[in-house]
């Protein structure tokens, strides 16, 4: 049985093979598993190999199996203290991590920056040292500054899991997007599939992380939006990390034509104030993902959005609930992927793995 076929089985709620090399039995602590995960932290996805991505996918399959149980909980990480430190407002990602950690029997502490000493001006370094002194083994953090999790990882003795940093990276989102896509695309493969990321790439950590993971899996990635929101990506595409397919364009028709996947990104109102866009109305008219525009895509196109959505701006309300939309599945898979990541990092930590 191949890894992909096995993953397909899990995604369709079928039985999970207990003997597959990439699907560990996750009821026990990861230290007892023959997993080949070498990263102590998950700060970015730029360095993940295809084999490592496959391992995350396989582990997520096993976690989906756990989630399908009457009591979706395993003792694998019992006694592991997970602190969730969010410096930005978030509901779905924070709750998703919390549910994931609890499903693995972790003890969870939630810190919202506004309610802690952070709002009194404590530095990130001091905050992280305090969290460690309070017994945290793993730190899930979201921060408005790109690269902040690297600073945390420099001083934290346990594992740091990046829950989104500035415009830079959102590893768990990219991995759940990858998982969701593989469960929806025929054959479960991204190889040669035309994937369009549409919208405000400039300010999007989701776009950046998806560029790495989707191109690593062989997708033909297109980034599309108003040229003001694509600055810098032309240079990225021109460098084109070896062997990756990556196109940047402002031509929405060219981008969507025959697309297998279209992911719309959130447009924020602040973008008009900084002169990047004339108006939301103009954006919706020129780049909004509508049923009309989707007609040019593949008939089986998969529609995604990392949320939260501005319906009627970057995505039409009917498209958001179209059967071709997997936006709700993205949320569900988010819990399974985050369980997999916590599990893998806990295993690597005990192996003394590196970042």
């Amino acid at each position, binding site marked *: 049985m191949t890894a992909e076929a096995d993953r397909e089985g899990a995604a369709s709620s079928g039985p999970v093979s207990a003997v597959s090399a990439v699907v560990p039995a996750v009821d026990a602590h990861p230290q007892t598993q023959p997993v080949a995960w070498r990263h102590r932290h998950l700060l*970015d996805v*730029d360095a993940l190999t295809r084999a490592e991505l496959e391992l995350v996918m396989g582990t997520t399959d096993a976690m989906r199996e756990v989630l399908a149980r009457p009591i979706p909980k395993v003792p694998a990480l019992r006694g592991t203290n997970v602190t969730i430190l969010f410096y930005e407002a978030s509901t779905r990602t924070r709750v998703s991590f919390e549910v994931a950690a609890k499903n693995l029997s972790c003890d969870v502490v939630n810190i919202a920056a506004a309610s802690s000493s952070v709002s009194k001006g404590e*530095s*990130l*370094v001091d905050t992280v040292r305090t969290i460690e002194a309070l017994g945290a083994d793993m730190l899930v953090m979201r*921060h408005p*500054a*790109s*690269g*902040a999790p*690297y*600073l945390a*990882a*420099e001083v934290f003795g346990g594992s740091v899991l990046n829950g989104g*940093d*500035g*415009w*830079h*990276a959102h590893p768990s989102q990219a991995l759940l997007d990858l998982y969701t896509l593989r469960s929806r695309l025929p054959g479960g493969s991204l190889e040669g599939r035309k994937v369009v990321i549409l919208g405000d790439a400039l300010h999007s*950590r989701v776009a*950046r992380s998806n560029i790495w993971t989707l191109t690593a899996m062989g997708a033909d990635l297109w980034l599309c939006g108003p040229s003001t929101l694509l*600055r*810098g*990506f032309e*240079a*990225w595409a*021109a*460098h*084109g*990390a*070896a062997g990756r397919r990556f196109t940047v364009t402002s031509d929405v028709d060219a981008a969507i034509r025959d697309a297998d996947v279209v992911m719309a990104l959130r447009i924020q109102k602040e973008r008009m104030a900084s002169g990047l866009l004339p108006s939301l109305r103009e954006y919706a008219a020129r780049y909004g993902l509508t049923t009309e525009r989707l007609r040019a895509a593949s008939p089986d196109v998969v529609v995604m959005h990392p949320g939260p959505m501005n319906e009627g701006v970057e995505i039409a309300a009917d498209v958001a609930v179209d059967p071709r939309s997997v936006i709700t599945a993205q949320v569900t898979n988010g819990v399974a992927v985050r369980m997999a990541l916590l599990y893998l990092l806990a295993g690597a930590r005990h192996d003394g793995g590196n*970042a």
Partner: protein
Amino acid sequence: MSDVAADQVLRGWAVDPAAGREGAAEVTLRDGLVDRVAWLSGEAADGLGPDGSLILPGLVDLHAHFREPGNEDAETVASGQAAAAHGGFTTVAVMPNTSPAIDEPGVVARVRAAAAASGSPVRVLVHAAVTVGRGGETLAPLGELADAGVAGFSDDGAPVHAAALLRNALAYAGALGLPIIDHPEDPSLTKGAEASEGYVASVLGLKGWPVAGEAGAVARAIAILADVVADVPGARLHLTHVSTAASLAHVRAAKAAGLPVTCDVTPHHIAFTDEWIAGSRRWAWEALDDAGAARDPWTDGALVAPPFDTSLRVNPPLRTPPDAAACVAALADGTADAIATDHAPHTEVDKHVEFGWAINGISGIETALPIVLAAVDAGLVPLARAVEALTTGPARILGERQRLVPGLREGEPADLVVVDRGATWTVTPGSLRSKGKNSPLLGRELHGVVLLTLAGGRVAYTAG
């Protein structure tokens, strides 16, 4: 007080740009003076080559930050002088972005007093602010400051933003015989910027600082200078820490047109690039492919350090490998008149934070010479030209009023540095004399060890 240089005979490869000469030499010191400079040839020169001990005029830095008054936990005049001496510099012009700003003669006197009190023979020149409080609104008392002996005027850290004010400052300072040292930046293009706009900033999700943010300001300043100089022939514009090919093209054209414009480049913009922020540590010239384009550090194994090291946060930002190459080329062809360190020491409190929240600046006066020598080693700039850009080049910009005449001249107080070019040292917090340990070179072994720095006939630094 520092000791008068001992009577001794220095033997090595001397470079004296003022005399237009380099070669094996024997420099005899007596009573703190250069008693004799003997250029050697034949057997006498055996073993004395450009790869061994170098004897150079004391280096001149026209742009450094010594943080006093106001930020003495980052640097003091005394610790800055010690760092300068360790780096081979015997003359340093400090920038006025202190607290309070150096915008009136009282603060100038205070800096001078600190320099005298330290006992260090390293000469500290003072740049004064162009505008009151560096606020960009009202001209500082430029005449009084000129009378107090300042070397130039600069609002460094920020540009003189209003074109009208820059125009008036160039005219007013020009009549006083002093340069305006402009930090070229258009803030409307650089607000909140974290890294040079392009590939690396895009991948790392850092807000881009576009080339136009500097080149546009350079072009504007040159256009204003051209206008002013017609009426005020003494007007002089110096553009500091120029970092892009586009800016240098404007400077090159202005010089060709005969305008009184000069510029400097920094060691870090010559040798470091934006890819260092992603974790690369190769020299800029090692990051170019055969066609002169930037290689991809994500695919060629160049990323060896964790990304987002805040010691790399600097303004203007580290640029692409081709821009760094343009800076070296400008140094080699004379478009860049000087190398300025922009030594910017900072505390751990201001640097050990998130990348985008870290204060700008690199502590660089002690690593400047080794970096420049690495570019010389790479064949990018001749040794004599590099030394010129570290001595007579900046001295000319600082002006004759400062009576700066770097050189190895008989009968004059010894003002020189001896460098063992073949020896190495490792940059560590302990090896840096500066209070600012914010160097991206921490842990790195550099070629070029300063053995002796003499300033005004006295010992500023001696190894061991």
